[in-house]
């Protein structure tokens, strides 16, 4: 049985406080091996019995459920803020869909869709403060949105006009990082710097379930723990690393990884924006209070292909997706908003119009995106210059000029 199918079976939490959370106290880890090997559970049965429950505040049906530990973190949330979260998710999904279709139209070379992960990204992204710093992978379009990065900036690298099209320091949102796991160390180092500065900012490092296997991620856990760095490791377990299910990366739930490094791990329903908000806020609060790192595993689902180059029909069936569609992050908040009368038809209609406008703006911006000047190859290789780059730039210029002279070769 796979992690995701089992989770699909029981989407609701029962005992609020302790579900899916591990602490750092060794004294309380009573799990132990029996005296003889044969007593031990086999892998698959262990799997079944260890399936953890999720921190959840909103059921897939949009019902608000109580949680003793986390309610406090969303207690003061206003209807307007709830509508804001909904708007964030809808616009992010719209933006994402537009990018996917722009790829199909040949305007982008590639797109990595976040479809299905809106709640994990908006919930965590909205939990951050302006002075916090975020280290994304290549799929955090929703977090970028929360950080105020203009979404059209995200498209440059997918169109192939740059390798990262924004100033990370404008919004404290680092460039997308493609080499899996690398950014978790940057985040940890940055957080070490925050602590050195005596600031009470915090850092969020995003990574995927696949990334959890990279040595760099493990090393970032070690550094963060040893230096007690104010960093939240936010793992979106979307069940897949391209074609590999999470069980190719771990045989126990990922949030438990943290415990072995001496900091808490928690699994949250990644399709529940409220729960993601609350859990991330709590983790950030710990960081700010000097209590060190937390690992958050947002249990969610990559509804689309890995990227537009991927063909998921080769490795997974439709049933899985259908099961997850029933837990759609946007739908559940809409149900809640409607049931609680926090949003009316006008709101939804207006948002629809705003979505369309965003789509149009993105479309136009992409099409208007100029190809970079060819001399850009030689720019920014070094901050202080480099003789060889200068020489090659000059040769390139002379070479280019030779065509002009000859009127073509």
């Amino acid at each position, binding site marked *: 049985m796979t992690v995701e199918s089992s989770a699909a079976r029981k989407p609701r939490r029962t005992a609020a406080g302790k579900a899916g959370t591990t602490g750092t106290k060794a004294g309380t880890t009573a799990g132990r091996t029996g005296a003889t090997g044969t007593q031990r559970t086999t892998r698959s049965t262990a799997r079944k019995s260890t399936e953890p429950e999720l921190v959840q505040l909103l059921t897939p049906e949009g019902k608000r459920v109580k949680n003793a530990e986390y309610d406090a973190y969303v207690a003061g949330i206003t209807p307007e803020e709830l509508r804001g979260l909904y708007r964030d998710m809808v616009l992010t999904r719209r933006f994402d869909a537009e990018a996917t279709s722009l790829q199909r139209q040949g305007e982008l070379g590639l797109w990595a869709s976040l479809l299905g992960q809106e709640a994990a990204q908006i919930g965590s992204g909205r939990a951050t403060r302006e002075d916090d710093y975020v280290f994304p992978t290549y799929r955090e379009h929703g977090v970028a949105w929360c950080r105020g990065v203009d979404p059209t900036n995200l498209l*440059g690298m997918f169109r192939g006009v740059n390798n990262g099209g924004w100033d990370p320091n404008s919004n404290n949102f680092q460039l997308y990082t493609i080499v899996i796991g690398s950014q978790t160390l940057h985040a940890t180092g940055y957080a070490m710097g925050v602590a050195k500065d005596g600031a009470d900012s915090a850092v969020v490092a995003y990574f995927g379930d696949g990334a959890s296997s990279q040595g760099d991620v493990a090393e970032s856990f070690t550094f963060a723990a040893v230096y007690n760095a104010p960093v939240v490791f936010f793992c979106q377990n979307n069940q897949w690393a391209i074609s590999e299910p999470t069980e*190719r990366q771990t045989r126990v739930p990922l949030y438990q990884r943290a415990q072995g490094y001496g900091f808490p791990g928690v699994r949250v329903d990644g399709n529940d924006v409220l729960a993601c908000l609350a859990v991330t806020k709590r983790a950030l609060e710990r960081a700010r209070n000097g209590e060190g790192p937390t690992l958050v595993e947002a249990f969610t689902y990559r509804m689309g292909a890995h990227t537009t180059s991927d063909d998921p029909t080769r490795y997974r069936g439709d049933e899985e997706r259908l099961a997850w569609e029933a837990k759609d992050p946007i739908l559940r908040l809409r149900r809640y908003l409607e049931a609680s009368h926090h949003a009316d038809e006008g709101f939804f209609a207006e948002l629809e119009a705003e979505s369309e406008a965003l789509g149009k703006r993105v479309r136009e911006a992409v099409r208007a995106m100029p190809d970079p000047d060819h001399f850009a190859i030689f720019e920014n290789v070094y901050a202080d210059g480099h003789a060889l780059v200068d020489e090659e730039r000059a040769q*390139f210029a002379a070479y280019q000029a030779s065509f002009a002279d000859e009127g073509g070769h």
Partner: protein
Amino acid sequence: MAEKMAMAKAINESLRRALDSDPKVLIMGEDVGKLGGVFRVTDGLQKDFGESRVIDTPLAESGIVGTAIGLALRGYRPVVEIQFDGFVFPAYDQIVTQLAKMHARSLGKVKLPVVVRIPYGGGIGAVEHHSESPEALFAHVAGLKIVSPSNASDAYWMMQQAIQSDDPVIYFEPKRRYWDKAEVDPEAIPAPLHKARVVREGTDLTLAAYGPMVKLCQEAADAAAEEGKSLEVLDLRSVSPLDFDAVQASVEKTRRLVVVHEAPVFFGSGAEIAARITERCFYHLEAPVLRVGGYHAPYPPARLEESYLPDLDRVLDAVDRSLAY
């Protein structure tokens, strides 16, 4: 017997043959199983040989190469895939300090017949880290053998030979040539793995290349022929060892050499070839060995790669410059 097939398919067939004929051969990597790899090079192999022979690994390149070393110590012959050139670096330590050196460290007692497959090079309009040519970073390291086929037939046979080799082989696959077709004859007698091949004879200048640039050099030779220049084209096939004898023989005839590769020129293969051939052919060369390759800059975004990569004009420009001496 011979069949026309794309290079990706030829490698697939070669892997299939190896899996079939030697139960110790394993395929390992990210997404190599059900998906058949992002380029489908391992397509269908897991289905036919099972999960214990064709292994989807955790997402950890050092782990992939490190466990492959352990499997080789146990008598297996792992063929590991690195998904893209730019992702080999997490495995670099295992490759350089372990895979390359264990045979020597053990005074010859331990053999590590591991093949590391790396789809490499640009020209496919990809995002960062998906278009690099890091072969020089491996060639400098003793204990590794480095090869790169330029066509489907070589891809097939060089893979057979790489798997049979008792040394670790880094097998660079020119991804932009994956879909180019050529005749593959599974009953042919292959050329030795580390010998260069003259793919076009000529008298005025030698173009030396490997992997993706061989085709470009052939096109350049065609174009030059129209201008009455006779270029010899050498497919080096192997970067370590490098068949200097073949280059020397050609240069002694043509007296001029241009080396072409996608990798940056600075500290690239062309430097080694130029240095050594100049030493070997000092009195034969009528012009300095010229190099055409990437610039000393990170591989640029897709919309700039045309300017970064060697192309017909840049090769011909170098040919003209050489002939002008």
